[in-house]
């Protein structure tokens, strides 16, 4: 590969890392509370509110059912409003975050639902408020699942960011399509795939180790 190619490669790598990282953080910050809201407002939840639960559920399902490539284009006005532009890496972070938030919310929801209701009852019985239950029971007890789910979300984002090339966001996926596929530069294609594999493996490894350290449920 030429040095110009290597520069392009490194820039693409950085774009992928940026897109994945930024939209990952944003989807965590909004997705975890959304997942919590889905759990606590459900029937028998600590803050039961079935109407709110149905509305939130419908919004999440709505976003999740639209294919990402369509969402990417459909959200252009929103992107322009938030990022000030509709093209480039930063612009791609908006639709990526909006797609990943409900995705992560559902994953977090599953872990939060698995928390033993007996633990919630125990903290209620000692005079704990709903907020105490969220802080001391739901989130800490579900933490291994919350982290494992976040790892899954990040890996999914690495893949989804490849589509963001459609709005000029760059990234490794875009590089592979434009150079590797359209210009038949097999070396670039192979290099991109190799780097993506390493990246995903590294993410998964770090995620798994973290879960292992957090999980106190067995001796």
């Amino acid at each position, binding site marked *: 590969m030429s040095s110009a190619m290597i520069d392009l490669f490194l820039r693409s790598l950085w774009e992928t890392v940026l897109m994945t990282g930024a939209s990952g953080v944003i989807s965590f910050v909004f997705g975890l509370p959304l997942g919590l809201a889905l759990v606590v407002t459900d029937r028998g939840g600590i803050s039961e509110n079935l109407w709110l639960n149905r509305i939130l559920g419908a919004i999440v399902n709505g976003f999740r059912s639209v294919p990402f490539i369509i969402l990417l284009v459909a959200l252009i006005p929103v992107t322009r409003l938030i990022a000030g532009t509709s093209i480039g890496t930063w612009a791609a972070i908006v639709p990526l975050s909006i797609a990943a938030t409900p995705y992560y919310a559902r994953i977090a929801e599953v872990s939060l639902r698995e928390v033993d209701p007996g633990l919630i*009852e125990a903290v209620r*019985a*000692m005079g704990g408020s709903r907020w105490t239950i969220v802080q001391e*029971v739901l989130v800490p*007890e579900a933490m291994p699942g919350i982290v494992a789910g976040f790892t899954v979300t990040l890996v999914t984002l690495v893949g989804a960011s490849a589509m963001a090339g459609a709005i000029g966001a760059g990234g490794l996926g875009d590089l592979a399509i434009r150079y590797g596929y359209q210009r038949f530069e097999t070396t670039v294609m192979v290099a991109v795939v190799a780097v993506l594999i390493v990246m995903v493996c590294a993410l998964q490894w770090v995620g798994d180790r973290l879960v292992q350290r*957090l999980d106190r*449920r067995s001796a």
Partner: protein
Amino acid sequence: MISRHKKDDTMSQHMRTLAADERRSGSAGPIARLVDVRRHFGQTAALDGVSLEVGKGEIVGIIGRSGAGKSTLIRCLNGLERPDSGEVHIEGREISGLGEKQLQPLRRRIGMIFQHFNLLSAKTVEENVALPLKIEGVAKSERLRRAAELLDLVGLAGKARAYPAALSGGQKQRVGIARALAARPALLLSDEATSALDPETTRSILTLLRDINRQLGLTIILITHEMEVVHSIADRVAVLDAGRIVEEGAVWKVFADPQSEVARSLLQGIRPQLPEEIAARLSPARGPEAVLRVDLAGEAALEPLLADLAATTGAFRFIHGGISRVQGHPVGTLFLGVPAGEPDLSRTVQFLAGRGARVEVLGHVVGND
């Protein structure tokens, strides 16, 4: 020695708090009082008009088969369940109409332990014990100091930094007890606390509860389906069946003379029973030998009854039975084989009844041993 000192210290602090509470409330009225409490789930009545009073320092056992309404009953006492109708008074205050927010400070006066311990797996033992104090807003150093005292009290001083998953069932329940005591409650609710434990661990947990009751004067209400539990620590027992209290009284009296079918059936495992091979050969038709069940309690069980019986009516056969002590009262059941011919049988029954025993002719033995 140091740990012993600490323990005494904890105890005396508890005593002072409890004494202060008594002055504040200014009465020796019941800690908990239920009046005609009803609770339905759909068509089924979990509680169908339950009234019960529990005095300060008492250990009251509520026993019943599964589905009898025990769990609902104990949860009405700290507002985890809300009755459809009726009154629940805790330390003189009616709580069944209170909202979740108003119940929170009240629940801090009531500790609770659970069948499956319900310890938070992500927190260490000391963090679990200190959690009620964290909820109360006690400073961290003070909470950990108190947690250490309590762990000492329940005999787990070395496990403060361990996670619950590393503990045995009995140790987990000790942590549960320490946690329930952290906020210095006036009342401890025990929800089948020993049902998931083996018999030996059950005994040690019950002994711990009894000690805590005696040393701290803590009132304990426990629900269980095991008569053994009631037998070992309760002062009073209420038998719950299909949402109603069908029998209530001092444990030894219910043991000696159970009135309800449920109580009799729950007692089966713990009271002497007629050996099966003899029961199988019993017939209502007259035979050479009648089998009597003789229930004795109190004074009647202390007298040389069998010797006197032999002197009065002649030979008989002692089949099975014994006398045990419940709350210091002798309670016994004897199965006797006596000559079935008249007037021998009537004389025997009259003699025993005259000595304060309850006698029942179970049947006649047909065939030989």
